[in-house]
């Protein structure tokens, strides 16, 4: 009612302001991608950035299914992997025939590969959503991964198919041998794909995908066939997964059956879910975090898989909206100006929570290294796994942290309620 009273000029102004901030975000992202390797120029960071870029496209493509259409897939790596294989074969073919196709066009081939597979099997797969789809995707994933070891002439057995990315025609003097050039190629495709996938959510199809996710039954009564919607979503997800696969093939110059396997499918599910499937940018955060953890955690601890599991369980239990969900929860508070009410309670809660986390880490590492006898280095303090002092410290942190954290988090909830009430009164929260 009150909206109707706002003069139209104000509405346009508001719209153009939001449009400006919208394009601003993309421009900043593009600029960041360009500048990033100039700031962190070591080979290690370049490798990490390249992998993160690929993971972002892959996770976003997965979210077309999970977050936007409500399809839980356990076999998304199939399209990713097939895209990778097709890209490798395309690179080899282009190189041997001297076709005038530069390397940056290759991911498109991967995308087409991923999409072609989706077109082929998608119609029967997407007939139903829910558990049936999840199980079919699991089955198809296993089937394709296993078949790839049988069809050796295409998939090269378990050693895979290799290629040489520098054997294609150079583009503006770029041979794509050095990692920095590959990084920019990946960054270019990250930008293109992210914009395309975002645009997709703003189309009639994208909106109806959401509707199918929320309520497939009702969609039938506003003129749409949810099966067709799911099928189309599956194709687009396959296309972008294929692009990610193609980029991986360029980055590693090899495609093998591990690309198609359950581990890849599981990782992308982790990324999307941890980042948060309800918001477009959620999987981006998830992809960054998971890839980073994967690269970093494995060299710090041998039981990285346990930490992965624990982080995942915590997210599912305490923040099912993922990181993006947590962030966006605060938006109405920021707009209502009541964030200040919650922050002190956060700071108070952070201390025992951190203690609890340290306790968990110390306990895990103590158990993990008990037989090995290595010292644990936590925050620069060495702990011997076999020393009773370590056990006591771990126990105190664990139990004490837990008990105090429980109290402080209740405080957080109370502060939240107060802040939310104010925000609601000011009309920023429904």
């Amino acid at each position, binding site marked *: *009612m*009150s*909206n*109707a009273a706002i003069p139209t000029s104000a509405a346009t102004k508001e719209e153009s302001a939001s449009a400006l901030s919208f394009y601003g975000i993309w421009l900043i992202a593009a600029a960041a991608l360009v500048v990033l390797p100039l700031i962190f120029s070591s080979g290690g960071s370049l490798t990490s950035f390249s992998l993160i870029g690929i993971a972002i496209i892959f996770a976003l493509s997965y979210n077309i299914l999970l977050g936007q259409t409500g399809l839980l897939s356990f076999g998304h790596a199939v399209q990713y992997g097939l895209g990778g294989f097709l890209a490798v074969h395309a690179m080899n073919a282009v190189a041997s025939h001297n076709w005038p196709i530069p390397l940056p066009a290759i991911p498109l081939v991967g995308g087409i590969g991923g999409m072609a597979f989706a077109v082929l099997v998608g119609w029967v797969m997407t007939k139903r959503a829910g558990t049936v789809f999840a199980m079919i995707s699991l089955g198809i994933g296993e089937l394709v991964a296993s078949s790839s070891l049988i069809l050796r002439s295409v998939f090269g057995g378990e050693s895979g198919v290799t290629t040489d990315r520098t054997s294609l025609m150079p583009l503006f003097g770029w041979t794509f041998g050095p990692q920095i050039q590959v990084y920019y190629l990946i960054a270019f495709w990250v930008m293109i794909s992210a914009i395309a996938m975002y*645009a*997709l959510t*703003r*189309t*009639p*199809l*994208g*909106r*109806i995908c*959401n*509707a199918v*996710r*929320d*309520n497939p*039954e*009702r*969609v*039938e*009564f*506003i*003129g*749409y*066939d949810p099966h*067709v*919607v799911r099928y*189309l979503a599956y194709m*687009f997800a396959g296309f972008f997964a294929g692009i990610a696969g193609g980029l991986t093939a360029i980055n590693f110059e090899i495609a093998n059956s591990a690309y198609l396997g359950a581990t890849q499918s599981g990782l992308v599910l982790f990324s999307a879910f941890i980042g948060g499937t*309800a918001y477009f940018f959620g999987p981006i955060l998830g992809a960054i975090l998971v890839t980073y953890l994967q690269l970093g955690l494995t060299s710090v601890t041998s039981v990285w898989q346990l930490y992965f599991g624990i982080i995942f369980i915590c997210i599912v239990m305490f923040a099912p909206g993922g990181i993006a969900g947590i962030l966006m929860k605060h938006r109405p508070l920021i707009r209502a100006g009541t964030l200040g009410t919650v922050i002190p309670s956060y700071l108070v809660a952070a201390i025992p929570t951190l203690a609890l986390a340290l306790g968990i880490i110390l306990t895990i590492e103590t158990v993990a290294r008990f037989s090995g006898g290595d010292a644990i280095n936590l925050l620069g303090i060495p702990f011997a796994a076999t020393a009773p002092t370590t056990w006591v410290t771990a126990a105190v942190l664990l139990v004490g942290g837990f008990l105090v954290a429980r109290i402080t988090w209740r405080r957080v909830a109370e502060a939240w309620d107060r802040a939310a009430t104010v925000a609601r009164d000011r009309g920023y929260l*429904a």
Partner: protein
Amino acid sequence: MTAAIQVNAVEKSFGNVQIIRDLNLSVAKGERHAIIGPNGAGKSTTFNLISGHIKPTSGEIRLNGEVTSGLRPFEINRRGLSRSFQVTNVFAHMTVWENVRCAVLWATGHRYAFWKNVDTLPEVKQRTAEILDDIHLSHRRDVPAGLLTYAEQRELEIGITVAGGASVIMLDEPTAGMSHAETERAVALIRRLTEGRTLVIVEHDMSVVFGLADRISVLVYGHIIASGTPEEIRGNPKVKEAYLGEEVD
């Protein structure tokens, strides 16, 4: 003139239980038609049959003269029939605005388009805004539908149903669970929104039924025992015996 809805000798069984027997119903174009009957008479099943939610065991249903029995709900919807649900059935995680807009998209011809920006389609925008105004939810446009109050959700449900511009609107107990004031508002809303269209309504509130309907059909045990104007129904002894009698006394 062909009827908007023509149901001929439709039967529906679930397993051995026959829910609908020899159902015959005719709704003329532009008519406001109410279906009443005691609980368990098969009113919702009748709705589900006509809208394609379930398929008849035998018999035939026509929409504007065209046979629609056996078609899927979206096919029937595209032929100009839209229905609401007794239990609120909206897109809970999407905003009010998006709920209505989704319902507008097919009718405005955008279908599965993935090359158009949905935010810049003028006719979609205009139509959605109109509907929101009509159902008095403009001020709640950015609220997720799942967070609306019950009455608001019922209004949104009606909004989604009429948004596509279908010529035949079917409303399943649109005022169920509403307060007196809310009901009055809803009736006015329904009256306005279905102006010039065919309306089929299932309702328990007799004041709504008799105030709104041009014609009434009485359904008992899956069979229509009487059909006529409100006056005819009031005076029909069979109806009194089977239904109204019990309730009035």
